[in-house]
């Protein structure tokens, strides 16, 4: 595979930014809280190394394709886990789910998955080959899912007036920028085809990912105010309070519908 100088430069700089972020997450022990996010960044670093090796050792097209799409599936699974991790941090601020938060998140999330699935299914892929067409649909679905799950998490949280701490706020800001760019780039690919400025669009996505990665490295390097923890007794009380209110609300709901 022949790569242009710009493509090599972008690849190398992305790798450096992601490796730097991984070092920050490990050295500042942010991985203790953001485990899936750290796993996702570590996966990106390893992914880059594997593809450097495959490209410069002239691997067969079949092997390259298999590894590429396997990596895409793992990448999507990790992205979903990162959004769920953000949801856990934001919607369980005191260790128990805030009432209605989980329900709101799951309802909005499922609606988002459904819309993403329908839009991906009815899209008209440009590949003639059936497998490649499904792969195109998969990429589109992945881009939409990432953004929609983030919106579901954010909407559930802000609707309940929950305050985001520094690191999760930084992660959310970067994630939303990158997810929006990815969404529109995948949409353009899908509608206009890879021959319409496909490389330029890809470069826009790579540069946005690099900027976001640098932003994350700075945010996660900076300390955040120490989190105060509720005593075990108060945690139990709060959990009971959540359950009690949840029960009352469901009873009220069922009475209202009679």
């Amino acid at each position: 595979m022949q790569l242009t100088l710009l493509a090599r430069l972008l690849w190398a700089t992305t790798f450096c930014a992601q490796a730097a972020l991984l070092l920050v997450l490990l050295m500042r022990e942010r991985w203790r809280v953001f485990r899936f996010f750290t796993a996702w960044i570590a996966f990106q670093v390893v992914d880059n190394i594997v593809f450097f090796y495959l490209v410069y050792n002239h691997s067969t097209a079949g092997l390259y394709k298999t590894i590429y799409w396997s990596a895409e599936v793992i990448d999507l699974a990790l992205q979903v886990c990162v959004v769920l991790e953000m949801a856990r941090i934001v919607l369980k601020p005191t260790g128990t789910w805030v009432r209605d938060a989980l329900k709101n998140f799951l309802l909005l999330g499922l609606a988002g998955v459904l819309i993403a699935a329908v839009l991906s299914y009815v899209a008209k892929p440009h590949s003639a080959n059936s497998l490649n067409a499904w792969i195109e649909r998969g990429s589109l679905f992945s881009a939409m899912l990432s953004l929609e799950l983030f919106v579901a998490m954010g909407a559930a949280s802000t609707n309940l007036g929950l305050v985001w701490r520094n690191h999760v706020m930084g992660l959310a800001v970067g994630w939303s920028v990158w997810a929006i760019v990815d969404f529109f780039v995948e949409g353009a690919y899908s509608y206009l085809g890879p021959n319409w400025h496909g490389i330029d669009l890809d470069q826009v996505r790579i540069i946005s990912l690099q900027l976001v990665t640098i932003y994350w490295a700075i945010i996660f390097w900076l300390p955040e105010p120490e989190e105060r923890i509720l005593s075990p007794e108060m945690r139990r009380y709060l959990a009971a309070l959540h359950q009690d209110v949840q029960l009352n609300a469901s009873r009220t709901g069922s009475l209202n519908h009679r």
Partner: protein
Amino acid sequence: MWILTFLGFGMACTVWVLFIQTRARKLRSGNWDDLVAQIQPMHMRGLEIVALDHLNPGRDQLKLEPAEIWALVGGTEGLRRMEVNADLMVSLAAYVRRWNYEEAVIVAERIRHDAVQLKQALRKLRRASLSASNQIKAPFYIHQAAAAYYLMTKRLINLYKANQYMLYPRLAEVL
């Protein structure tokens, strides 16, 4: 058609993301004076009459007519103000964490629960106002909303009374 749906959906998500970020930043910038300054005045006496009619029913439980209930809570404007103030009250309760962490966490959660009840009642009220057959339910939803708001104000004022007597008078005055 597909591209229009896709773009519309993408734009809606983008606008929603911007709204989420703005709201999250507002919740984080917890300047007490700013929060209190944003509270919109309510006719508390009227609201209290409606709320207590729901929470503490007397012998004559039908004494308040629907039109009277509507006027006592301040009509559409009163309901809008309740919704705005509900979010501010959650932030003001969370603010007390710096003086009494445990009590503030618990009370803030209770106020948040009340705020959810309030918003649910207002949502149902808006839905009911759209169909003539459901408009009969409107007074029930106004009662629920007024009761939730009343409980929120009581919880918040008592939290400040117990933990922050310096800020308490100003808060009691604006609420």
